[in-house]
């Protein structure tokens, strides 16, 4: 079943792109190349009026070809249609007008708790993580919070997170193996990627897998792969792998 024409990064990018609807306001932050490419893909295919928001404030950048080392760089403003910087993106989300926010995290548990802060005690941490950046205010306020994580193992999907940077109201988590949906207060297995299996997901997840039926993530279409080559010729979507 494994198609060698696409990689895990392509599957994740396309899966995320397909979660985005036309006209939505969508924000990604720093170190977020994969969702950035997914947003451009959605905009190029089914969501032309998607509103692309980012840290440097470039609304609907015309291109992301120059974003090699940063998804928060000036290049996003240089080709944009207007200026709407981070401060105001946050305000927008507070007003309930941010449809989708992309966020990270290091640990997740079945109850939708997210840790991006510390391993160990907050005041005397064993490991000080980079911090949740926008998570603690965007996950509670964005209409749909999508988390992506390029690692899927038992250290990431844990029984209990070490610290709750924020919790609740997340919408989807996209990993190299599957998509989780958060509903009724629990993470549910929404779909398994075509490159993976129920067993593999189970072996790499530290909590019980909840699901109604086994579904598989739609593999990238030819059209999507062709478009990906065009909008992301330098393969920034794979930087984290």
């Amino acid at each position, binding site marked *: 079943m494994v198609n060698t024409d696409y990689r895990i990064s392509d599957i994740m990018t396309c899966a995320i792109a397909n979660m985005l609807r036309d006209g939505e306001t969508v924000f990604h932050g*720093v*170190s977020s*190349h994969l969702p950035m490419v997914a947003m451009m893909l959605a905009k190029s295919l089914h969501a032309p009026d998607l509103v692309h928001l980012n*840290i*440097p*404030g*470039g609304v609907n950048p015309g291109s992301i070809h120059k974003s*090699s*080392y*940063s*998804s*928060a*760089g*000036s290049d996003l*403003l*240089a080709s944009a249609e207007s200026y709407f*910087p*981070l*401060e105001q993106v*946050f305000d927008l*989300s*507070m007003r309930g007008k941010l449809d989708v926010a992309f966020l990270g995290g290091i640990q997740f548990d079945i109850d939708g*708790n997210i840790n991006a*802060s510390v391993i160990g005690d*907050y*005041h*005397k*941490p*064993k*490991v*000080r993580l*980079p*911090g*949740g*950046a*926008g*998570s*603690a*205010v*965007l996950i*509670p*306020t964005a209409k749909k919070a999508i988390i992506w994580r390029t690692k899927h193992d038992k250290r990431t999907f844990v029984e209990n997170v070490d*610290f*709750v*940077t*924020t*919790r*609740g109201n997340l919408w989807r988590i996209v990993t190299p193996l599957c998509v989780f949906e958060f509903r009724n207060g629990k993470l549910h297995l929404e779909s398994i990627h075509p490159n993976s299996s129920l067993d593999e997901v189970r072996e790499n997840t530290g909590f019980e897998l909840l699901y109604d039926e086994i579904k598989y993530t739609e593999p990238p279409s030819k059209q999507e792969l062709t478009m990906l080559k065009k909008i992301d010729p330098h393969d920034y979507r794979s*930087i*984290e792998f």
Partner: protein
Amino acid sequence: MKKVVSLKEAIGIINDGDMVSFGGNVLHRAPMAAVREIARQHKRNLRIVKTAGAQDVDLLCAMDCVQSVDAGFISYETKYGLAAHYRKGVQEGRIKGNEHACYTVICALRGAAMNVPFMPVKGLNAGDLLLKNDYFVVVEDPFGGEPVTLVKSLMPDVAVIHVQECDIKGNSIIHGPKFEDILISRAAKKVIVTTEQIVPESKTRLNAERVDIPGFLVNAVVHVPNGAAPAACYRKYEVDDQSLSAFIAMKTKEEIQEYLKGYETKDYVGERMAGRIW
């Protein structure tokens, strides 16, 4: 009255123990020459405020200049990895890592710009950040609504900002993303501007509506071409990959001291400008 000064003089404004806020964001337009001079002048116990920092914070942590960091995110981006010196400092208990949500740093700075002791924040209503940090508190809404989270204002003593253009009065123009620079220039008691170029007043006057920081808010202007390097500076230069990678590989203070020395000629190139009669 003379605002154009040497980098050494400008950084002399900063006292040990000051709350200092840096312009830029992660790898972009951070005031790195100023940061290096802070390290060279061995400032101590600085309380750093920034939504999202990288080498600026990491370098000062490495050189033991830092008491606390109030930030939403401290790390390089994907390609360059984590901020090792900051992490180590916090893990060893030498540095207090006050985690915010980027937006709560912004709100805390807005509080400073308005000179009020706190700012209400929508959104931060769940999780341990609220419980573990005394700079957040949840109160009743006196107008009868839901409980409201307040963040305590962060009032920087000094803002340090790198810009592309500034005149001798301090009128500064930032090209490209402004990040939180305008906000911190209003929130701080004093403002140090380092600039790629000192432009004639006639030029800023022609672009009066585009002046981001009016001169009367600025205490010191330093001419430092490449003053953001190895971070990027829009329309001037990209990230200096080699310098940044070299720094990230460094483990000891001695190595970093050498690194700082290596920048001295570049960082002090504007000294001659400061000496000139304008």
